[in-house]
């Protein structure tokens, strides 16, 4: 077990280092940062000075080692545009994304579980088939298109909810969150729904499969024989048994939710880290792109590591074949 753990952790560190190399050299290919830092009529002397100040005059491998050295100390450079440390900048934008992802997860369970249980209950009837066909739409609808449609219906036509931006925020332990203010919550509903749709389809499918399996079990037959109502069987007995796999999968999906938030945040002009990434790509703000990618990669590596370790504890067979990155 200990050997496996050490090997697994060493693997994760190796992956993190490899990603560092890929991200650095990949982003190095984007245009010349000096062009956006200096006004076009700068003298050659000024250009040279700026190059030297940012270290762009050094050979690329020296720049890389400086980058790695700084990164290990938690410094991923300063934003060209904002003038702030890139890590601070991202940490500043992160809570907005996380609360959006959390509400999105909540919505996906709220929508997906009842639909899935019902579809499993009526598996061979038209209701079940309709829900399954609907879930295909949920899988295939492009995220941004759903967001646009929601804005068009609820913000432009009905005027029930605000269209874009972030509403009032409340300070919770020094972090600005809008989930606790009524106005802020109104701004969150549409983007969170957009983000939730894909996961809701996934939950629907999982819940349906689980329900179909559970309905033929003995405890359901027993409950029926006892005269328990169908609703109670479905939403008390069956639900308790199918929630474990659903919660597991959703935990795994939290990471991809953060990645998908890039699109949703752009549609709703939500000031999260995804919007920050897109803005940085469009303005060639190299340090922020690198910092975002490194931090996201790190989050994923940690999630995968934790999942693998938990699985190993639960299922010793995994140890033989080894896990994923």
């Amino acid at each position, binding site marked *: 077990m200990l050997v496996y753990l050490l090997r697994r952790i060493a693997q994760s560190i190796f992956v993190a280092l490899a990603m560092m190399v890929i991200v650095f050299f990949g982003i190095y290919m984007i245009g010349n940062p000096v062009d956006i830092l200096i006004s076009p009529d700068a003298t050659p002397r000024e250009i040279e000075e700026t190059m030297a100040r940012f270290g762009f005059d050094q050979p690329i491998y020296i720049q890389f080692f400086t980058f790695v050295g700084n990164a290990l100390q938690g410094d991923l450079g300063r934003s060209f545009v904002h003038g702030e440390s890139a890590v601070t900048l991202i940490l500043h934008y992160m809570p907005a994304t996380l609360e959006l992802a959390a509400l999105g997860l909540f919505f996906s369970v709220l929508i997906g579980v009842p639909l899935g249980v019902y579809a499993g209950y009526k598996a061979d009837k038209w209701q079940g088939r309709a829900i399954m066909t609907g879930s295909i739409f949920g899988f295939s609808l*492009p995220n941004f298109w759903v967001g646009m449609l929601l*804005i068009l219906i609820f913000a432009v036509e009905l005027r029930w909810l605000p269209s874009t931006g972030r509403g009032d925020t409340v300070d919770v332990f020094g972090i600005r969150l809008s989930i606790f203010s009524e106005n802020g919550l109104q701004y969150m509903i549409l983007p969170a729904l957009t983000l939730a749709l894909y996961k809701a389809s996934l939950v629907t499918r999982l819940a349906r499969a689980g329900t179909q399996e559970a309905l033929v079990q003995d405890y359901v037959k027993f409950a029926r024989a006892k005269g328990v109502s169908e609703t109670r069987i479905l939403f008390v007995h069956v639900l308790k048994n199918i929630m474990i796999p659903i919660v597991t999968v959703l935990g795994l999906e939290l990471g991809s939710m953060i*990645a998908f938030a*890039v699109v949703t945040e752009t549609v709703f002009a939500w000031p999260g880290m995804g919007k920050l990434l*897109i803005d940085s790509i469009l303005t060639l703000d190299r340090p922020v792109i690198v910092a975002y990618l490194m931090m996201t*990669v790190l989050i994923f590596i940690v999630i995968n590591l934790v999942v693998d370790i938990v699985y190993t504890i639960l299922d010793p067979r995994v140890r033989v074949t080894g896990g994923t*990155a």
Partner: protein
Amino acid sequence: MTEMPAPIPLRERTADALPWLVTAAMALATLALAFGPDWSSLPARVLMLIGFVAICAHLLRGRGRQFFNGPVAYVAAGSLLLLVVLALFANEIAPQNPYDLRQLDIMDGRLPPGSTTFDGAMTYHLGTDEQGRDILSGILYGLRVSLSVAIIATLVAMAIGVVVGIYAAWAGGRVETILMRLVDLQLSFPSILVALMLMAAFGRGLDKVVIALIIVQWAYYARTVRGTALSETRKEYIDAARGLGLPVRRIIFKHLLPNCIPPLLVISTVQIANTIVLESSLSFLGVGVPITRPSLGLLIANGYDYMLSGQYWMSMYPGVALLAIVASINLVGDRLRDTLNPRLRK
């Protein structure tokens, strides 16, 4: 005297190469279509359409009733065929070439659906965008870009995936471990994140989008093919072929490969839809296809700025087209999975 085992019918296990050739021809035609300086010739496109229909017919021969099990299947297959035809013959069908500046009139900008040109010669059925381009024509041309980018990327990724997957399964040992670790590594990150990362490094461009989409997808195919190939190599017909002393190349290409393809076809159908969505998301974010060759995603992004002021048609109708193509591919893929997947067949 012991009974002789029944001879294994080798011929039943070898598939014919026709659909392969047609697929390859179609891929080349699409390539010419997307990257050629101008439209490829009409006969080439007609040929491609025939090829496409022939593949579908070949796949479904004898299983038509199983595939068309309800009205949804008919509608999905019909609309998919219709959209493919519209995309293929966009410049014959579209009332206007939206990228020919001589045909545009800036005075016709942002007209609502149903408006006509000043002289009444042409009706803008779906309105115009801010440059006075006909939305309907833009959608037809955009559909072509979206479809061809997705098809090329999927086919190339599939080819790479098949080669890597089969190689890994056949070679085994250390090679397999390294290749599959690489696959696991890539698949542990969401595809949109990988694609964004690549596009941030490449910059926007049609060829760059295709390359990014290939890199995003190949690992998925490699994993699937390796899985199938591993279970196929353990079957008797491969042992029989080996026992006959057939050369390895022949076993792989004539026996193993054809049997790995059917599950792959089902996946690739759905994967084309996913690729269209991914490409349109990238284009919507402004890191996808260039402005000179807008896909549906970019059209939606262009019209998005005007949507909040109630001029919905500029992004709404391209969105409906995108939804139609993605949904019909997915529904057809869903039917294909039920029809072709031997594991699910009862």
